[in-house]
């Protein structure tokens, strides 16, 4: 295969400056050089992540604490979703290498079949990432809480369902005695963040005051992520004590004692940089996947039109294949260092 070519080239070509030192075509070589530089970018990002994490020590969230949900099934499935994403990307990498293999046999139909499979896999991955981002941004039912001593804790456990609100004092949209059964969680979290809860009486957006009918929370546990006067990073508070401290913060009537989800300024999972790294690294990778899908579609159209068959070789498929495998390669590292370790 590659490597024998230099022996076959006659002397005039050899000395005429037409030979590649690596016995590969210009295009493939440049793709490799681009991939090395792109790998350095991702390497730099992951090292920066490692630096920040190493520096923050125990305050850093653990993958299985943050990523434990599945679509339609709720919580309690640590890492299964990302493992699924990883598997989807590996499979799409396999279908890509099969497309390249078919290209080496000049099997046009095979190339088309496997490239379409790769594109579908790519869309599945991008879609999964969209779900994961949405879930990360909206956050959990408990959120992150700031306790009375100034420490901050993430909350684990089962959130008791909110069944209804009973209006005690009328506002703009609700009459006294009315039972509200819609959009409860959203209104409740809104009131929590705004600090509109006093002694378990919630003041809604329209000014009506309501009492909450809510099932009891179970297995509640607070894990301290920021030092306070009493609690230090890594402390665990369990059972009744956890429940009391959490609801004391909610009932304090102070805004932003509890926050939900994540944005670039704050997040419920850990230090500020955690959210920023999550958005930047998985976002940058997701952007690569997306552009990879687009490039694959363009090349696939070329294959269908017979451009490469006429050219006598399917090297363009090989080159987009290199890029696509690289995207998979990066994900292998992101998966380990962001989710596992």
């Amino acid at each position, binding site marked *: 295969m590659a490597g024998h070519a230099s022996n076959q*080239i006659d002397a005039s070509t050899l000395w005429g400056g*037409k030979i590649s030192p690596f016995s590969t075509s210009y295009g493939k070589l440049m793709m490799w050089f681009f991939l090395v530089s792109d790998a350095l970018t991702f390497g730099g990002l992951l090292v920066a992540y*490692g630096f920040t994490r190493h520096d923050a020590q125990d305050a850093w969230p653990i993958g*299985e604490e943050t990523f434990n949900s599945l679509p339609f099934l709720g919580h309690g499935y640590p890492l299964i979703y990302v493992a699924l994403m990883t598997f989807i990307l590996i499979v799409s990498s396999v279908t890509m290498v*099969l497309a390249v293999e078919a290209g080496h*046999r*000049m099997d046009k139909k095979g190339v088309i079949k496997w490239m379409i499979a790769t594109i579908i896999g790519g869309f599945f991955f991008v879609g999964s990432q969209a779900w994961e981002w949405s879930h990360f941004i909206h956050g959990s039912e408990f959120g992150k809480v700031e306790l009375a001593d100034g420490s901050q804790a993430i909350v684990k456990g089962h959130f008791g369902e909110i069944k209804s609100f009973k209006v005690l004092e009328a506002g703009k949209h609700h009459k006294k005695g009315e039972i509200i059964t819609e959009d409860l969680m959203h209104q409740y979290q809104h009131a929590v963040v705004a600090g509109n809860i006093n002694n378990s009486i919630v003041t809604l957006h329209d000014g009506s005051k309501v009492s909450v009918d809510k099932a009891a929370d179970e297995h509640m546990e607070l894990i301290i992520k920021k030092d306070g006067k009493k609690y230090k990073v890594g402390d665990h508070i369990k059972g009744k004590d956890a429940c009391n401290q959490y609801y004391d913060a909610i009932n304090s009537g102070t805004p932003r004692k509890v926050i939900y989800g994540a944005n670039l300024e704050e997040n419920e999972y850990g230090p500020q940089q955690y959210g920023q790294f999550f958005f930047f690294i998985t976002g940058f990778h997701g952007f690569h996947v997306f552009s990879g899908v687009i490039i694959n579609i363009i090349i696939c159209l070329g294959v269908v039109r017979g451009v490469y068959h006429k050219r006598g*070789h399917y090297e363009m498929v*090989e080159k987009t294949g290199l890029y696509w495998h690289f995207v998979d*390669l990066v994900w292998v590292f992101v998966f380990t260092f962001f989710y596992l370790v």
Partner: protein
Amino acid sequence: MLRDDVIEYSLDTHHSEEQGKAIRKKIWMVTALLTAITIIEVALGAFIKQGSGAWPFVKWSFIIMTLLKAGYIVMVFMHLGDEKKSLKYVILVPYFLFMAYLIFIALMEATAVGNAWETYGG
């Protein structure tokens, strides 16, 4: 569009139906291996808690398994294993040297910064 500057190298990778069979078999073997490694990683991550006694061992096995996976992807899927030796090393050696240096220096610096925060407050 015939481009005489690339054609002989671009044709080098062509292979026959029989060779294709062997290559495809290798691809599926590697697929099975990568899947198995991913399953092992997730199982370890889900069942062994960070900070437990076995954790340092698990952490290093994650890193080794990741490098193994990366190796198979680069060498088999990206065909770097089939390229000329010189190309292989031009790609790999500078990258590994630079990354090893960067990781070393960043972790040393992170420890120092962490200690400074601890000593002088934050």
